[in-house]
């Protein structure tokens, strides 16, 4: 029947087109390789079919799930009225929206993933997760509450230095410093919030920029923080006082044939930040629909309107800055544990901008967007590494294209859909 054939061929064609488009876009990154030592360009055409196949499959899958989602929306609970065997808990679990099943599967996948990756990949993944936490925190301030914040890295630094310093001077461990770092960053956010209560827009941006620089300069010039030399030898988080590599690596290598050079401490940090990302995502989702979230939204929309419905803009601002900063503190402590050495140069203005890019590129106010943005932004430079010195040029060009053709970000927030339709 012609009808059916057209129905099946359409997604296939579309997938083919997407695959070609992806291959074209990724050509300079994945196929051309500049060998800067011998000064020649190598072409890795063998990668092209793999790329095409991957793009084709991904597009087909995406289409399939979207269609399923649509079908489900069209016929909700179609068979629920018909009499049948009693519903057991297993049925209920299976009937539970696909979303939960896929999410738990994804979570499990992400948990076992680092055991099969190279240490280098684990490092990139951990960094990506840290950036997701940072993005979610800044999203509260910039995306949801509409306060342009250009000094967010300062709060990241507070978290990292709380761990670094308390460990250096008092030998305190990761688990004590994690809540302390979070709290300190929140306090720093409150401290910044107090003078800027009355500021909005550009003025606020400038003050936050100044605050970020003050923190960086303090860290650079204070002898307490060891100045620009930074703090080294920051220990990994403890695991009930056991040495992970000594106790567990031989077992894993022997019985599961895993990579004998893997660093279980790094994997442990990865698992911790993974849990933190899950928790902060849940927190961000809950906050979005809470009273506080609505107050932030009102603040972003219109300050006068905010006041006329009885929301105090200054309170909304303070809570947004405090809570947003606490996310950065959390990420900071984990960051310090991950790279074991922290210096003021890791928390510069560029880093603030980097995090801001995640929020803007991902989609302001959209939680899934911020997660996607963080993943893309933190992994992209690694993929672009082969393009050597051109990578920031390509990075910048991609950013410009993105802002011109998709200003709502990778995944636009639900709210901006209504506002612009």
């Amino acid at each position: 029947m012609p009808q059916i054939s057209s129905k099946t061929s359409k997604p296939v064609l579309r997938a083919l087109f997407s695959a070609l488009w992806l291959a074209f876009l990724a050509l300079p990154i994945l196929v051309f390789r500049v060998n800067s030592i011998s000064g020649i360009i190598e072409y890795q055409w063998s990668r092209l079919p793999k790329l095409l196949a991957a793009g084709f499959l991904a597009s087909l899958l995406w289409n399939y799930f979207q269609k399923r989602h649509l079908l489900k929306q069209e016929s909700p609970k179609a068979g629920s009225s018909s009499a049948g065997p009693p519903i057991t808990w297993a049925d209920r679990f299976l009937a539970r929206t696909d979303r939960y099943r896929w999410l738990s599967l994804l979570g499990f996948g992400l948990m076992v993933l680092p055991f099969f990756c190279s240490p280098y990949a684990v490092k990139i993944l951990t960094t990506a997760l840290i950036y997701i936490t940072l993005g979610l925190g800044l999203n509260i301030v910039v995306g949801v509450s509409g306060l342009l914040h250009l000094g967010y890295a300062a709060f990241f630094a507070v978290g990292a230095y709380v761990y670094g310093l308390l460990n250096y001077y008092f030998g305190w461990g990761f688990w004590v410093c994690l809540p302390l770092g979070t709290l300190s960053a929140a306090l720093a956010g409150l401290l910044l919030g107090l003078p800027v209560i009355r500021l909005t827009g550009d003025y606020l941006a400038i003050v936050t920029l100044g605050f970020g620089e003050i923190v960086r300069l303090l860290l650079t010039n204070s002898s307490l923080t060891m100045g620009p030399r930074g703090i080294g030898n920051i220990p990994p988080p403890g695991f009930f006082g056991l040495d992970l590599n000594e106790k567990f690596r031989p077992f894993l290598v022997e019985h599961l044939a895993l990579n004998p050079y893997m660093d279980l401490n790094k994997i442990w940090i990865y698992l911790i930040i993974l849990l933190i990302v899950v928790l902060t995502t849940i927190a961000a989702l809950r906050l979005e629909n809470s009273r506080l979230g609505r107050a932030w939204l009102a603040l972003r929309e219109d300050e006068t309107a905010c006041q006329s419905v009885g929301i105090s803009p200054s309170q909304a601002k303070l809570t947004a800055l405090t809570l947003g900063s606490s996310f950065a503190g959390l990420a900071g402590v984990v960051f310090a544990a991950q790279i074991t050495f922290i210096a003021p140069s890791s928390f510069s203005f560029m880093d603030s901008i980097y995090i801001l890019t995640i929020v803007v590129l991902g989609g302001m106010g959209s939680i899934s967007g911020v997660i996607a943005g963080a993943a893309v932004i933190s992994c992209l430079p690694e993929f672009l590494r082969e393009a050597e010195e051109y990578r920031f040029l390509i990075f910048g060009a991609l950013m410009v294209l993105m802002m011109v053709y998709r200003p709502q970000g990778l995944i636009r927030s639900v709210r901006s859909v209504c506002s612009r339709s």
Partner: protein
Amino acid sequence: MKPLLAVNGVKTFYGNIEALKGISLTAGSGEIIALLGANGAGKTTALKTIVGLTPPGEGQIIYAGGDITGKRPEDLIRKGLVLVPEGRHIFPALTVSENLMMGAFHRADKNEIASDLEYVFKLFPKLKERLNQSGGTLSGGEQQMLAISRGLMGRPKLLLLDEPSLGLAPIIIGQIFETIREINVSQKTTMILVEQNAKLALTVAGRAYIMTAGRVAMSGAAEELQNDENIRRAYLGG
């Protein structure tokens, strides 16, 4: 009978500038008061001072038997003192229903909120049609309706309306003023109405205050003011 609101000798400053040079006015329960005057006379400042947005430098404001001088707006809204700001100021990216629920932000009485919502839809059936549309896509008249409705969702005892006719077509203005009168009659809501369009304001208001340069120049029953030839020429534009 004691008035619901009494403003006694209130002075308000913006920095060194004295915007209100000692005004006094009262609003009795169930009254509609019009606040008239030229641009810059201090009408909007008077409203902002009453709801606590610009706390007075001097003087006293008594509301429902209590001194509310210097209280914050978010506390006053709980007591039923609601301002519908000039220029509508709805939340443009939020839907109509979200905008309305924002008006009830400080309330927790779910059933009452639902019945207030029904009431608002009865007043402005158009809003019900546009429930899931974002506020920014509404026409000017609809936005004004939404702004007033959002104010009503706060269960006001005293509703302050700042220039509800601003920038609207005459036919829409007529509808809105008709509804304002209806709210006053059915809910016994006391209102203070700031308007440029003095003629129209005097048709719904019982009494009016005429302000010039931060002072109350004149006050009286709406009819009297309307019929006085001199006042009409001097303050009300013919």
